[in-house]
């Protein structure tokens, strides 16, 4: 385990993958940091950094994602039904 660029790239890619999975579960950045730390032993700071970088590259997506999450928060009973 060194700071080899390819292993870094692979690692970062893995973290991105994990983050995307969390997003599928509608998790917040904090929730994701916690889950990845707990289940995959990834330092929260790494998760948060990758998350932020992803956000920069995919602004629109994350904006929409945040909106959706807010919606769900304010309408807990209709999260499954039509909203």
């Amino acid at each position: 385990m060194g700071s080899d660029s390819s292993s870094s790239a692979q690692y970062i890619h893995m973290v991105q993958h994990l983050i995307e999975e969390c997003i599928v579960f509608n998790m917040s950045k904090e929730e994701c940091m916690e889950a990845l730390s707990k289940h995959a032993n990834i330092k929260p700071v790494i998760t948060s950094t990758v998350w932020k970088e992803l956000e920069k590259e995919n602004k629109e997506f994350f904006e929409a994602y945040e909106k959706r999450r807010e919606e769900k928060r304010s309408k807990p009973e209709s999260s499954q039904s039509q909203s």
Partner: protein
Amino acid sequence: MLAVSPLRNANNEREGEMEGFSMEGSEFPDFSSGNLLDSIDFDDLFVGISDGDVLPDLEMDPEILAEFSVSAGEESEVNRPSISSEKLEDIESKQEKVAASVSASDLGSGSSSPIQGEEIVSRRNHEPVNPSPKDGDKGRKSMANSKNPPGKRKVKVDWTPELHRRFVQAVEQLGVDKAVPSRILELMGIDCLTRHNIASHLQKYRSHRKHLLAREAEAASWSQRRQMYAGGVAAGKRDHLNPWIAPTMGFPPAVPPGVPHFRPLHVWGHPSVDQSAMHMWPKHLTPSPPPPHTWPPAHPLPPAPADPSFWISHPHQVPTPGTPFFPPPHLPPTRFPTPPVAGIPPPPMYKVDPTAAGAVAVPGQSLPQPPSDVHPSKESVDAAIGDVLSKPWLPLPLGLKPPSVDSVMVELQRQGISKVPPTCA
């Protein structure tokens, strides 16, 4: 006949003159003499109008009122040839003016000042601004051609892929949860769609998305469990420390050939495309359903990699290279009435499995509460994470644009992490 019914009321006492308007020849001795206009005392006429008991009658619809005057004019032209037509036209125009100004006075001024002939004319000049004369003329037409009152009649809309694509674009622009039918309608700019069409389509779209996300999340946990049950080969290799070093890290070695590369926005609900796709899928079932051949056979299809990105926000985004892209062209048919295609379980991935892998137990209809709920279940999350760690070659579920490694590294170093993966977790 000159329908001056509102006027008639007021002028009953002036039978001589008012009756004259009924156009009985005998009662219009003056007409035959040709001094029609002279004989009609318009002052009296309008005085009558200004009477209190006339105005209440004029509460009636100005359109109807105008109708009377117009139709009266026509009728009189037809039925009373003995009367010189130009005189009749004069009367008619006067009638209109009366009607218009009366309605104007009814609508606008509300004053009951006597309306003199000259005032009528002058007011008539101002009439163009007042909608009532125009309404009078067009009243009948507009009522005849009025648009179907919204909500009372639904025109069947054919949601072609193109139409749907524009719909999705509009929704994405607004944000799927914030998308309001009237705004969507504006953004789409198609005037043969009603707000109602949009509203119902939006409802279907949203429920469809939810099912997609649910299914995708469910797939993650199902696949994980199946791996464990299937002998735990992959499960046994729960090596959290090394997967990213594995040489297979990265993208799958080969994109399965013959992947039907549908554009994400493409074929939602379109019968013809669906049918062609449908024909493809069954063929691919046995010979070479792409995903099961690429990945371990017991593993059902990847967790709908395209679905969230399909619906969420990057409809135009081509998935990362090497990621087999499985938009669900078959999803709509079972959910939306438009496509006649039947018999296809919503996600093609799931359809392939029962035959090829024989392992998928979920046809897609019995989904429990999706983890995309406010509180994702820990097990699902754990399962998904474990899946990623153990099978790094799996495609990314969302296919987000990856950040540049350098910028991530720089940022990490700023946070105090110099080596990645860190030696001390």
